[in-house]
């Protein structure tokens, strides 16, 4: 059964199961999950099942409800998501019987070399080679550069293909967008793609895009061949050699 755990500063304050009835969250003590904090509205949000999916709905709260780092009015919840309400967060456990390790979204305090140091060219090469030799997940063979590309397969845009060379790609009607969407009633920024160290993440703009038919609730890492749909435009995300 799905479970919500109210957390404050890493400590679990209360846990409630989500069954047939909605779980209410708020400052008022008659909520299923009362959160004692002035930043929380009396009846702040509720979580319930709808069509087999767990949904969080903000009840017009003053300070908002956040799923992971995204402010939401309504959002589908996934296992491991965090609902942030004021300084509290609620961990979503939709994994059934198998408990998953709780990723708090906080930085674990890593042991560290205390002083920052810079490697010179030779040391840098050796260190990376050493690391590459011991690593098992080396995906990119040296010398073969893969260029992430958006290929438009439906809808009206100013080009048919876009190579993603920037840290940030904006999809929308705005004249400043990289992928310019044409047509009436299209949003200035429909979606955005951010290049991070471990890949390319699509996130919402004024619209929630879908990836392979599934609406995203926050930044989602794109995989080779993924189908993106937003504002009437369909695109394939591929790595080109």
């Amino acid at each position, binding site marked *: 059964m799905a479970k919500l755990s109210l957390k404050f500063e890493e400590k679990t304050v209360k846990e409630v199961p989500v069954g047939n009835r909605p779980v209410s969250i708020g400052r008022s003590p008659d909520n299923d999950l009362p959160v004692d904090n002035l930043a929380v509205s009396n009846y702040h949000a509720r979580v319930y099942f709808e069509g087999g999916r767990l949904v969080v709905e903000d009840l017009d709260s003053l*300070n*908002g409800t*956040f799923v*992971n*780092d*995204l*402010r939401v009015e309504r959002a589908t919840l996934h296992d491991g998501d*965090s609902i*942030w309400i004021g300084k509290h967060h609620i961990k979503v456990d939709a994994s059934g019987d198998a408990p998953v390790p709780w990723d708090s*979204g*906080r*930085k*674990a*305090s*890593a*042991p*560290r*070399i*205390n*002083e*920052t*140091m*810079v*490697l*010179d*060219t030779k040391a*840098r090469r050796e*260190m*990376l080679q050493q*690391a*590459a030799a011991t*690593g098992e*997940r*080396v*995906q*990119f063979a040296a010398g073969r550069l893969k260029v992430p590309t958006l290929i438009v397969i439906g809808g009206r845009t100013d080009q048919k293909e876009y190579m993603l060379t*920037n*840290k*940030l790609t*904006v999809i929308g009607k*705005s004249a*400043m*967008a990289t992928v310019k969407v044409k047509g009436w009633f299209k949003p*200035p*920024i429909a979606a*955005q793609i*951010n290049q*991070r*160290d*471990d890949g390319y*993440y699509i*996130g*919402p*703009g*004024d619209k929630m895009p879908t990836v392979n038919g599934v609406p995203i609730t*926050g*930044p989602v890492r794109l995989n080779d061949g993924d189908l993106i749909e937003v504002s009437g435009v369909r695109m394939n995300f591929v790595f080109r050699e």
Partner: protein
Amino acid sequence: MRIVSGGVTDLGRVRTNNEDCFRIVESLDLFVLADGMGGEAHGEVASEMAVETVVKACMEPSEAGATQLGTSEPTWSGKTRRLTGAVHQANRNIYDAAEAHPEQHGMGATLTAAWIDGSKLSVAHVGDSRLYLLRSGNLQQLTSDHSLVAEQVRRGILTAAEAEESEMQSVLLRALGALPDVEVDTEEHMLFARDTLLLCCDGLTRMVSDPEIAGTLQSENDPTRAAEKLIALANERGGVDNITVIVVRVGSESRGWFSWLFGTGRRKAASNGAAGGS
């Protein structure tokens, strides 16, 4: 575009000196942040030299006569070119100073600079300080860390989660002052009304997660107070390093929270935050 900004630097809870340095030049909408390294007081020297060199080069009215270091792309704007050249110059200045003064050998600095011109943003960056963009509730990192662990993640050797646990986080592959020439990351972006920029050093990002950063920026409109809150959060977690944060809010002329912000006269932009702790 109307711009309001605020910046704060803090010693943290462990260090005894502040090697960070930042400057906000309101008249230019220029924001520069550096994190120094190299024992004794030399990290402070390096970070201040980095920031001052970049600010000075950007304030000089004419581009003519200045010998531009480094390469530039033909599509870049004049300001992007000037900013990139300025970072190359800062590298050279720190390197030369370290060569000339043996006791300063090994000093260096990260540098992250953002320059706003209308709706265009120029970014120049070396090291592991960061520039973030918060747009539509979506926090996006506009710089790559030039650290060993980040490079290992880019090559698929480590996962992002493993990198956060690594004891090698302080090992940089690029910094100002280490070599006579440095590769500078430069990019241009278009800004939209209600965008928020965040420049910060690793003293923040090692202590505070992206969702927490996004939440704080969304819950506090005032740039200086948002910066103070982020620093307080990093200190609550232990504050193992100096913490420096610049928050920049981009607004349209007369709509929404922005006009409200101006109406209450809360503008509190720090103009100079040279290192010094709290």
